[in-house]
Each structure stands twice: as structure tokens, then as C-alpha cells.
């Protein structure tokens, strides 16, 4: 699945590599499942260090739609903490990703970063979560000019990822997983992508629009 076209760049991170093969994604929503094969055309390509069997997605243990979202409090900077409950009244997209600096999630977060204005129109915020420490997050966010908070699931390591069912114990980091949590703190959509595949943002927007229309119907019925 790698492109043969590997232009020369001065960025040492843009070296071609073995990346995850195509794999089916799993979607949990209304019991439906969707297939999407890998898309590996990314800007920065480096090996997925320690990714284990590449792209492997086990039977998803991710908390499904309809589940109460487990609360958490995590650091986002050395002296700032963020709790899920801080966002009550807003929708929140939790984007679990394996690690700062790994190439695919770099692009994943870059894509969310680009569409923050559109996501906010749906009364939603996006936060990234990985097991990296706060100092690492700060450097990473600065380097990539990210405007969304990165939470540090660092101590006990991966505890929040575990509570959402998306921790990869043998690897020591989380799945690449998305959760949409509604204004009342209920998971309305969740999605686990192959570890090496950037899930993009279309699923997030589809889920947000679905919530909008459900809310409109509810409003009309009430």
C-alpha cells in the first residue's frame, strides 16, 4: 500500500516506510458496520514504532453508542487539568491516538484542527488523548500548530483508554478511536480505526449531523 512516489524532502520524518496494511474498520452504531480500506498517503511517514502486528484490530471492545461516557480528569498542561464533566452541555469528540509524533495521527489531528470551526458549529469540541506526557504534548502541539487540547493519559498509564475499551495492552498505547459524546454525557457514536489509518473526519460529521436531526425530531415531538 505504499506509494512508489517518494519525493525527496528535507524533512527527515518524511521517509517512506512500512505502514499498516489495509484493514477493515469497525463501526459501532446501531449495529451497523462499514468497511473502509486503508489510505496511506500521508505527509509524514515513519515506521509505527512498536505497533505490533500492524493494523490489527481485534474484536472491538470500544464502548458502544448508548453507553454512559466514563468521566475522567487528565492533565493538558503541567498545571491544568481537564475533566469530561467540564464539557457538559457541549458535545465532545474524544480522539484517542497511539502517540504524539507518529505520522498518521499527526495528520489525523491536523485534519481535525483544520475543521474545528465546522465542528464547533455543531456545538462540539475535539480533544486528543494519548499516553504521552504533558511536555511531549506541548512540544507536539506547538510544532503542528494544533488548536485543540491534548490530554495526557499518563498516570496511571492508559487508564482512560482502558475505561473506554480502547487500550492496547501489549503495545502500551491506545487504539486510534473516536467517541462522540452528547451534551448529557452519553456516547452516541464510536469508531475504531486500524492503528495505521487516519480515520478522517467524515464519520465525525455524519455522526454530528445525525445527532442534530435526532435532536430536531425530539424537539418537534415534544
Amino acid at each position, binding site marked *: 500500500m505504499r*506509494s512508489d512516489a517518494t*519525493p525527496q524532502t528535507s524533512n527527515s520524518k518524511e521517509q517512506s516506510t512500512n505502514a499498516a496494511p489495509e484493514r477493515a474498520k469497525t463501526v459501532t452504531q446501531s449495529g451497523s458496520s462499514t468497511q473502509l480500506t486503508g*489510505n496511506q*498517503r500521508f*505527509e509524514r511517514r515513519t515506521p509505527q514504532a512498536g505497533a505490533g502486528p500492524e493494523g490489527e484490530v481485534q474484536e472491538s471492545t470500544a464502548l458502544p453508542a448508548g453507553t454512559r461516557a466514563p468521566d475522567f480528569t487528565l492533565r493538558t498542561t503541567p498545571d491544568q487539568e481537564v475533566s469530561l464533566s467540564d464539557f457538559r452541555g457541549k458535545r465532545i469528540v474524544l480522539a484517542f491516538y497511539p502517540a504524539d509524533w507518529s505520522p498518521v495521527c*499527526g495528520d489525523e489531528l*491536523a*485534519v481535525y484542527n483544520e475543521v474545528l470551526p465546522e465542528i464547533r458549529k455543531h456545538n462540539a469540541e475535539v480533544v486528543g488523548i494519548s499516553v504521552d506526557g504533558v511536555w511531549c504534548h506541548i512540544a507536539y502541539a506547538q510544532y503542528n*500548530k494544533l488548536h485543540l487540547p491534548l490530554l495526557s493519559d499518563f498516570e496511571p498509564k492508559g487508564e482512560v483508554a482502558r475505561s473506554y475499551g480502547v487500550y492496547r495492552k501489549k503495545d502500551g498505547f491506545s487504539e486510534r478511536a473516536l467517541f462522540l459524546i452528547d451534551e448529557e454525557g452519553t456516547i452516541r457514536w464510536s469508531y475504531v480505526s486500524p492503528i495505521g489509518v*487516519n480515520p478522517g473526519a467524515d464519520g465525525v460529521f455524519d455522526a454530528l449531523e445525525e445527532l442534530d436531526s435526532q435532536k430536531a425530531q425530539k424537539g418537534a415531538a415534544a
Partner: protein
Amino acid sequence: MRARRQGTLVAPVSARDHVQGPADAPVTLVEYGDYQCPYCGAAHPIVKALQRELGDNLRFAFRHFPLATIHEYAEGAAEAAEAAGAQGKFWQMHDTLFENQQALDFESLVGYAEEVGLNVERFATELENHVYAPRVREDFISGIRSGVNGTPTFFIHGVRHEGSFDFETMLEAIQARMQGLAA
């Protein structure tokens, strides 16, 4: 929840697009690209070679997908292509930008406008006022909604191309799609 399959183009090619090749070509190739992305730069001559090979059998449309936070000059370059398009020279500017990916700052863009033969004053004013930013954003969002998650992303007659974008792979995929459509 999902009425549509992922990996399909949600906005079909229309009059708003920049298009090369006949409107009734059997296959349409759409690229979402970023003028500062080195992989898009690498894909540029491959697209040209495909156009040569397939002739009137291929229609090609280019849409903007600038990852502006990581590519400082991508947005300006996309707007420059649109500004050139407003003067009837989209493709000349498009080629020039891909051939000069390492120099896409404002001064360089104005230089290219001159080379291409544009009304430079109008071009520079429009760039400074970001006249075409909404147009670029439309492309970007249509890409997002179609599942574009990196660049370049190609759609062959509405379906996302998942393989690599070397010439042989692309040609095979396009020909296979042509046969499928003809059948």
C-alpha cells in the same frame, strides 16, 4: 446511520470545477491536492502521463485540500490558482505551482502571475483580500465529507482510489473502472 459508503465522492464534478478533458469522457478522475505537499508534487507528472495515455477517455478535475496548519504556503497557493482561474489561467498556474513547490510565498506567487501573463495588479489585490478563500474552503470541506484524510487523494469516477498512485497502478485502476462502467 450511514446511508452512503465511505470513500465515495459526495460532490460530483460540476460547472464549478476546474476540469481538463471532454465532459463526456467515460471516466472522471478527481484529485484533492495541496500545492505544498511533496506527494502531490510527485503525483503531478503521473496525472499528466495518465492524461496523455488516456486522451479523450479521461476527464480530470483538481480540488484544493490545503493542510494549512502544517503547510504554511498551501492556502495562499490554492488561492493563487483560483485567482489565476478567475483570469482564465487556472491550469497554467496549477502547473507552475507544482513545478515550484519550494517557493510559494507571496512574492513568488506574484512572480508566477507575471510569468503566466495575468493582470498582476488584480491578482495581487485578490490574493491580499483572500477573495478566493471561501472557494478553497468549499473544496476542502467537500473533501472532508468524502473522507479525504491526506493528500493526494484520488477519486476514480466517484470512488476513492485506495492503492498507490504510481502510473501503472493508477492506469490499471482507471481502465478497470472504465470496463466496469461500460459493462
